[in-house]
C-alpha cells in the first residue's frame, strides 16, 4: 500500500535516517519503536506527506505521495497526531464529521453517504455514546478514540498515528492498541503507529519497525527482533538492557550475588518470587543447580530458605525478603 525506496528523512540537510525501504500492507498493524529523538515523528510526518524527504520516494498505491493532490491524498491517508487537540466547543460527533472534509461540498454538508461513513467510524471505535458530548469534557482515552474515529471517517487505506497511547493509563493503552489492531483487520486499513510501549508493541504488533538513534531501521516480527538481538542492541546503546528471554527491559541491577530458586516451573508463586528476588537485587537462577543461597517455593504460603548459615521457613513473601535483607547473623553475603 505505502512503500518507500531509498528514503532519507530529516530536517534542513540534517539527515535522521538513511536509505529506508519500507512497506505497509493492507490489514497490517505496524508499531514504530525506538528511543526518543531517533526520528519516529519525522518518519511518520514524511510518510504522511507533511514533510518532504531529503531524498528517495514515498509511493502510495503506486503513485508518488508528494504528487497526489491534497484532497485525493486525504481520502487515502489519515493521521492522528500527538498532543491534545484544543478544538474549542465541538461535540464529538461534529469533530468526527470533520473527517468528511475531503468528500463534502463547499458548505461541508453531509450526504447520507457521509453520515453513514461517520456512523461506521464511530461504531468501529465504540464512541457512539460520546456523540453529543463536547470534546473538552472527554477523558484522554475517549478523546483519542474520537480522534481515531475522525481519521477513519476519511475512509483511509493508510492510518498513521503518532504516539496515540502517550497520555493514557495502562488499561486504556491496551484497549487502544487492541482497537487499532481490530480496525486494521476489519477495515483492511494499513495501520502504523509510533509508541514507547515496548512491552505492548511486542505483544500486539504484526510487525515492528525499530528505529535506532544512529538512524538504522530494523524491520521484522516482534519475536524476530527480540531473538536476533536487534532490540537489545538498539536499547543497549541507550543504557538500558533488554532481557532476550523475557522480552522486557531489565530494571534491576543484580548487586546481592546469585541465588537459586526452585519451585513449580509454571507456578505463579515461583514467578512472583523470582521478581521479588530480582527487585531486592539478586541474580536469580532456576536451572536446577543449587547455589549457596537457595529458595524452595513449596506453595504460595510456604517458602523454605537455605543459606550457608542455616535454614528457615517463611509463611509470607515479606518474611522471606526480610530474612534475606535483615542485617542479622544469617545475612547472606553481599556481592
Amino acid at each position, binding site marked *: 500500500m505505502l512503500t518507500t525506496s531509498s528514503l532519507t528523512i530529516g530536517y534542513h540537510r540534517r539527515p535522521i535516517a538513511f536509505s529506508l525501504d519500507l512497506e505497509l500492507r493492507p490489514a497490517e498493524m505496524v508499531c514504530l519503536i525506538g528511543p526518543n529523538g531517533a526520528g519516529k515523528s519525522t518518519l511518520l510526518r514524511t510518510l504522511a506527506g507533511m514533510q518532504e524527504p531529503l531524498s528517495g520516494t514515498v509511493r502510495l498505491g503506486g503513485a508518488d505521495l508528494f504528487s497526489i493532490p*491534497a484532497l485525493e491524498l486525504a481520502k487515502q491517508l489519515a493521521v492522528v497526531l500527538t498532543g491534545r487537540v484544543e*478544538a474549542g*466547543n*465541538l*461535540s464529538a460527533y461534529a469533530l468526527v464529521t*470533520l473527517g468528511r472534509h475531503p468528500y463534502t461540498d463547499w*458548505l461541508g454538508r453531509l450526504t447520507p453517504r457521509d453520515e453513514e461513513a461517520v456512523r461506521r467510524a464511530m461504531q468501529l471505535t465504540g464512541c457512539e455514546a460520546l456523540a453529543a458530548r463536547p470534546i473538552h469534557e472527554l477523558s484522554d482515552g475517549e478523546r483519542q478514540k474520537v480522534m481515531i474515529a475522525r481519521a477513519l471517517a476519511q475512509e483511509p487505506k493508510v492510518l498513521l498515528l503518532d504516539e496515540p497511547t502517550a497520555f493514557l493509563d495502562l488499561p486504556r493503552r491496551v484497549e487502544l492498541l487492541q482497537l487499532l489492531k481490530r480496525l486494521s483487520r476489519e477495515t483492511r486499513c494499513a495501520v502504523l503507529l509510533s509508541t514507547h510501549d515496548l512491552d505492548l508493541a511486542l505483544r500486539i504488533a504484526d510487525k515492528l519497525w525499530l528505529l535506532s538513534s544512529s538512524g538504522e531501521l530494523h524491520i521484522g516480527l516482534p519475536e524476530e527482533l527480540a531473538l536476533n538481538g536487534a532490540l537489545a542492541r538498539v536499547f543497549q546503546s541507550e543504557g538500558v538492557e533488554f532481557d532476550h528471554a523475557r522480552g522486557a527491559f531489565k530494571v534491576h541491577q543484580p548487586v546481592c550475588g546469585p541465588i537459586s530458586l526452585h519451585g513449580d516451573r509454571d507456578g505463579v508463586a515461583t514467578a512472583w518470587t523470582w521478581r521479588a528476588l530480582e527487585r531486592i537485587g539478586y541474580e536469580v537462577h532456576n536451572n536446577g543447580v543449587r547455589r549457596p543461597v537457595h529458595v524452595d517455593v513449596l506453595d504460595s504460603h510456604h517458602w523454605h530458605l537455605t543459606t550457608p548459615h542455616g535454614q528457615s521457613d517463611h509463611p509470607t513473601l515479606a518474611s522471606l525478603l526480610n530474612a534475606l535483607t535483615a542485617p542479622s547473623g544469617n545475612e547472606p553475603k553481599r556481592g
Partner: protein
Amino acid sequence: MLSFPKLGLRAWIVVLLLVILAAAFILSLTLGSVRIPPEQVLRILSGGEPDKASWADVIFKFRLPKAITALLVGAALSAAGLQMQTLFRNPLADPFILGVSSGASLGVALVILGTGAGSASAFIAGLNAFGDLSLALAASLGAGTVLGAVLIVSRRVQNTVTLLILGLMFGYLTNAVVSLLIYFSQPERVQVFSLWAAGSFGGVTWNQMRVFAPVTIAGLFIGFVMMKPLNALLLGDDYARSLGLNVRRARFWIILSASLLAGVSTAFCGPIWFIGVAVPHVARSLLNTADHRALLPASMLMGASFALVADVIAQAPGSQYVLPLNVVMSLFGVPVILWVILHQRQLRFS
C-alpha cells in the same frame, strides 16, 4: 440506532435573529432627534405619504443610509472578528489585528493632520479638496496598503504566529506615526481626527454606499465560502492539511475577507472597536458550538442588531446630542456581554 446531534444553525434561531434584526432596524429609523412612529416609518418605506412631509426626507436622507451602514458594519466586523479568532486561535483577536485599521487611521491622519505638518503637505492639501470623500479615500488607501502587504507576507510565511506578530508590530509603528502627527498638529485638526476615531455610522452618503455596500457584501460572501476551511482549521494547521486543505490558500482568502470587511468599515465609519471581539463570543456562548456554519451567520445577524441598537443609543433619542459610537459600545455593550458570557458555560475560544 443512535441518533446523532444536528449540525449547523437551526431554522428557529435564524428566524429569531432575523426578527430581532428587523426590530432593531425599524427602531433605528424610528428614534433619533425627531421621533417618527413605526407605522409612519413603514408607510414611508413602502412608498406612502407620511403625516409630515419632512419625515420622508429625514428617513431617506439620513436614517436609512445610516441604518444600512450600521447593519453592514455590524455584520462585517463580527464576521471578521470570528475569522481572526479562529485563524489565530486567539480569543482576543479582533478584525484589526493585522493592522488594517492602523493603516486606515494613518491614511486619515495624513489627510487631516498632514496639512499642518509642514513640507509634504501640498499633495495632501490637494487631496483634501475632495472634501468629505477624501477621508474615506485616504482611509481606504491606508487600509488597502496594509491589506496588500499582509496578503503578500501571508503567502510567504509558513507560521501563522509570525503573521500575527508582524501585524502587531505594524500597528505599533503606524500608531507611533499618528501620535507624531497629532503632536505637531493644530488642536482643531486633532479634534477632527479624534471625531473620526470615535466612529460613526452617519457619514456614509448614498453615493458612498455604492462603494461601501458591494465591498462589504463581497467580503461577507468570501467569508461564507471560507466557513468549511475555518472548521478544518479548528483542529490546527497540521490536521487541516491532512484533511486536504491548502492551508496557505485558505489563510489568504480568510485574511482577504476579514481585512476587506475591517478595512472598508474603518474607511467609512472610523475604527469601531468591541463588536469584532465581543459578538463572536456571544454567538459561541449562546449557540454552544464552534461550528462556523452556525457561528458565522449567527455572528453576522447578532452583530448587525448590536450595531443598530448601539447607534440608537448614541443618538441619545429626543436630544440633539450625539455620543461617540465607540464610547456607547463599550459603556453599554461590556456589561451586557459580560453577563451573557459569564452566565453561559465557561469561555472557550472558537
